[in-house]
């Protein structure tokens, strides 16, 4: 565990994601010049810009296996995960403050809710997820997440991995199913922190 106990982690597999992660990390540096950054990337891909990187396997839909293993990959007690295609436009201290208050996780609700929720999943996974959960769960976006290494988070991530392995595709449906089995203390942040004025989100940019 490193001395300053907090940092930002990216997952970047493939040229597009690596480009986006580098740009995101540069935008982060303008507001948090001393914040340590770690990038999880593919074997033999090398570093992403100036940030240290760790190589990891990437089965299934790119980047998702690393995401559901963030609790094992992070080297800090408090971690902010940022999707590679985010851009930082402001101070992100508030999320860490939420963790210091005693919350396990801070993240934002997704933009698509209700009938549109989980529309990015396969039909089978979407139907199974909605059937497995109580009526109309709130969809959460995993692109910006602050989390603290607590016993509850460890259990949540273990369940998230188990759920993700069922389809090995996207991660948000798996997270909702995991949360239902392993509730944690979540503090909701506003949209400004994901696809907003404090953290922008260039959805789909990694594929370009």
């Amino acid at each position, binding site marked *: 565990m490193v001395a300053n106990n907090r940092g930002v982690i990216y997952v970047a597999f493939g040229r597009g994601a690596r480009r986006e992660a580098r740009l995101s990390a540069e935008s982060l540096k303008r507001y948090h010049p001393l914040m340590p950054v770690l990038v999880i990337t593919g074997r033999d891909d090398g570093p992403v810009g100036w940030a240290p990187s760790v190589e990891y396997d990437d089965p299934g839909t790119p980047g998702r296996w690393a995401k559901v293993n963030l609790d094992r990959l992070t080297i800090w007690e408090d971690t902010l995960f940022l999707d590679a295609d985010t851009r930082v436009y402001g101070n992100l201290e508030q999320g860490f403050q939420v963790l210091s208050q005693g919350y396990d996780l801070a993240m934002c609700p997704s933009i698509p809710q*209700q009938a549109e929720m989980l529309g990015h999943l396969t039909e089978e996974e979407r*139907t199974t997820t909605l059937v*497995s959960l109580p*009526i109309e769960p709130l*969809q959460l976006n995993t692109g910006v997440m602050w989390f603290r290494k607590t016993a509850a988070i460890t259990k949540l991530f273990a369940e998230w991995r188990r759920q993700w392995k*069922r389809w090995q595709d996207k991660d948000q449906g798996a997270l909702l199913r995991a949360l239902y089995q392993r*509730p944690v203390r*979540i503090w909701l942040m*506003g949209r*400004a922190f994901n696809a907003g004025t404090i953290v922008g989100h260039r959805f789909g940019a990694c594929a370009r």
Partner: protein
Amino acid sequence: MAKVQLQAVGTVHEVDEHGQLVIYHPGDWFKTGKQRAIELLETRQAKLPDQEQVKAIVKEDLADCGILSLGESDLSAIVNQYELKHAMAEYPKLPFGRTLIIAPHLTLSPQHVAVGFVRIERRKGAYASWEMAAMLRSESITAAQIGTEDDQKATLNLVGTIALPVYDTSAVWIRKTRDTERMVEAWVQNLQDGVGDEHAFLQALYQHKILICSLPTGWLGRWLPTTEA
């Protein structure tokens, strides 16, 4: 967990013990867990031939539940349906094992009440269970857009930001625990200090770290069946 046998009214999707999706067509009989059974029954996706059986299943599950209205409310239909306890008070409190705290103007149905309570049921053998369920007030309105300047400043000082979603406090389901009792005490203190509803709730929630199941905006209105049985 004891399974409940139901008959599908529409097409019902279930997940079997192997995690596989199973489809039941109208008229098919199938078994499911009690929580899921209550949701299917209350949303008219499934039925039992004997309505008294439905009531018995739900009543048994809601034995520790009651409604606290923060003012005059005609809840006789809901209370009688499931023999729920009912109390009235000026400020929130937790008189029951599971309490639904409602604003006096709110229109509710028995289905709303039952499904909300099921959400916060303490699940046997589970590592943790949700302690509270509450809807978000809006998909776009944040704490920066509601309340007085003093309320916003207090929330900002506490949380570090007011770019936060706010909760709809007109219906909050709460299971009594040490943490939720403390949270409700703080909520009440904020209200008595003159803090507006949403900020009072948000500030108390932040300070007491409840296992809250946040529900989407308008959750109460959307999934209710359009015709009564």
